């Protein structure tokens, strides 16, 4: 029987809530822990905010959240990217409520203060009353430190955070591989599905590195596939693996033959893409181009989980935003190739619609599982969530990292060890 722990002192000591192979269920339901997570994780580490293609042109903007804090990602007239706090410096109203678009300025709707795309305060109605009171140059929208890797824009409130490339570390190799799925064209966001589920953000974080659930939860999706494709998705007994990449990141390789989408271009074209190949040939594309696009169209054979809020998940970006301790918003961001042949991007969007989003054949069943976990976490005065699958069968990966079988819970353990490190970091207080 599990030993009971002192509930009274749970929030005082997050270190006791994460063990090597199990985590305490209060991590999903304790509001005090959630508040600490916002402060010690989302306000301290690098958080994904956008892909550069979402703010492709001068004047483009997109809104996002870092934890609960609203931010704007903008590209100014000189095409420089900025990440700005979405908060007027006067009385604090948000200055932009659009999801994305193009604008010449951000104007506060309350008293009309106007900011340029780089955040500079440009206009104050009836400025004479501020003479000798404020200096516009000192009141830009607050700018966040940000950096990009392969077009993925990350931002942080922490000026002391390690460089982004160091933070991503061993994950960079996998990001490079993931980007090959745009078929030789620049990777471009094509749109997103947004949905919420009544559960904690870490339940979704775990799911991206959870192969074990796939044949159970997604039985109805697998049933909708042709025989050849359903064999590809039958990967639990295959040669796949989960590798701990450090800093809470992990990769789960489900389909090893689809790790490098620029390799094996002479393989037979799968049945489900035969029609696409014909459409590309009919448009006059060379056979080499047809094969490159067909090979890339279904996405990579792995999920790369980047702590804490984004994943490069087979064929899309999965982005999570914590709303409250028991509510999370998920964006499934569809991607394709900028300037790629229309049939290629159309097929990518149709595949995305098939599995992802609130009406997909996969996501709703995932969300049902996550909701059940949240409800179950309230049962009993004490209890633990097991993440110890494959714990005793770990082996070093080709890159020398800890790795387990494809259905091991290696990636979850990696994320929770990072959680523990950040939540107990003395400097984080």
């Amino acid at each position, binding site marked *: 029987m599990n030993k009971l722990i002192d509930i009274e002192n749970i929030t005082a000591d997050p270190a006791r809530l994460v063990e090597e192979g199990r985590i305490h269920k209060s991590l999903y339901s304790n509001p005090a822990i959630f508040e600490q997570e916002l402060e010690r994780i989302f306000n301290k580490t690098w958080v994904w905010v956008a892909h550069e293609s979402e703010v492709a042109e001068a004047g483009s903007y997109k809104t996002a959240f870092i934890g609960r804090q609203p931010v704007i990602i903008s590209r100014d007239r000189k095409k420089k990217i900025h990440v700005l706090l979405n908060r007027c410096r006067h009385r604090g109203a948000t200055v932009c409520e659009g999801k994305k678009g193009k604008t010449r300025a951000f104007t506060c709707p309350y008293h009309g203060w106007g900011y340029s795309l780089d955040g500079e305060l440009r206009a104050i109605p009836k400025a004479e009353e501020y003479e000798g009171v404020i200096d516009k140059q000192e009141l830009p929208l607050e700018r966040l430190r940000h950096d990009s890797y392969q077009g993925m824009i990350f931002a942080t409130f922490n000026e002391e955070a390690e460089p982004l490339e160091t933070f991503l570390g061993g994950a960079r190799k996998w990001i490079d591989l993931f980007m090959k799925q745009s078929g030789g064209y620049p990777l471009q966001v094509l749109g997103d*599905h947004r949905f919420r589920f009544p559960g904690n953000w870490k339940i979704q974080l775990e799911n991206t590195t959870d192969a074990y659930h796939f044949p159970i939860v997604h039985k109805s999706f697998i049933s909708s596939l042709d025989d050849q494709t359903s064999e590809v998705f039958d990967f639990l007994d295959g040669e796949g693996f989960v590798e701990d990449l450090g800093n809470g990141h992990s990769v789960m390789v489900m389909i090893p033959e689809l790790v490098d989408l620029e390799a094996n271009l002479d393989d037979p074209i799968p049945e489900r893409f035969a029609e696409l190949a014909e459409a590309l040939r009919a448009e006059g594309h060379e056979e080499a181009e047809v094969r490159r696009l067909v090979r890339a169209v279904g996405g990579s054979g792995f999920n790369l989980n980047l702590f804490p809020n984004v994943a490069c998940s087979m064929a899309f970006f999965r982005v999570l935003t914590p709303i409250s301790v028991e509510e999370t918003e998920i964006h499934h961001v569809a991607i394709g190739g900028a300037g790629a042949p229309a049939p290629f991007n159309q097929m990518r969007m149709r595949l995305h619609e098939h599995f992802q989003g609130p009406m997909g*054949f996969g996501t709703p069943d995932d969300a049902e599982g996550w909701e059940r976990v949240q409800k179950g976490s309230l049962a009993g005065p004490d209890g633990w969530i097991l993440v110890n699958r494959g714990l005793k069968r770990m082996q070093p990966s080709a890159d020398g990292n800890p790795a387990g079988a494809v259905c091991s819970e290696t990636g979850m353990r990696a994320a929770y060890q990072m959680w523990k490190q950040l939540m107990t970091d003395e400097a984080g207080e």
Partner: protein
Amino acid sequence: MADSMFQQAIDFLNREADLLDHKAYADWLGLWERDGKYVVPVDTHETDFANTLNFAYDDHAMREMRVARLQSGESVSSEAQEGTVRSLSRFCLLDEDETSIHLRCAMFLSEVRLAKPLLYPANVEYRLTKTSEGLRLHTKVVRLINAGHHLNTVAFIF
């Protein structure tokens, strides 16, 4: 006197709504033209559905697969769906010619999932084909007014 084509179309769409609320999905599939499209766009102003991301963009094969999934017993979210009630109103005739009729209406759909009621208001556009066997669905576009924000699990057909 025979009902006007507009009234026949309204009757047809109310029958379609009734089939969906009562999960008579096989009969619903039978209302469609084979080359018809069932669309739930993400952007409520979108018209180029093939070249944009939708929540659903179903041709005949996808409609059949969607129905099979909802009825398979293999989908835990579908099993948790307790039912929908929808009403169509504010019908507006947009266009009519010899072969088809184009309408728009308001839809208020309520569902109950895991004991929670949810409301989905939408503008719905239909193009119905006139055939010797009566009207058939050619295009149905469900523009949810909340589509641009976030949805929860949708384990039914709008």
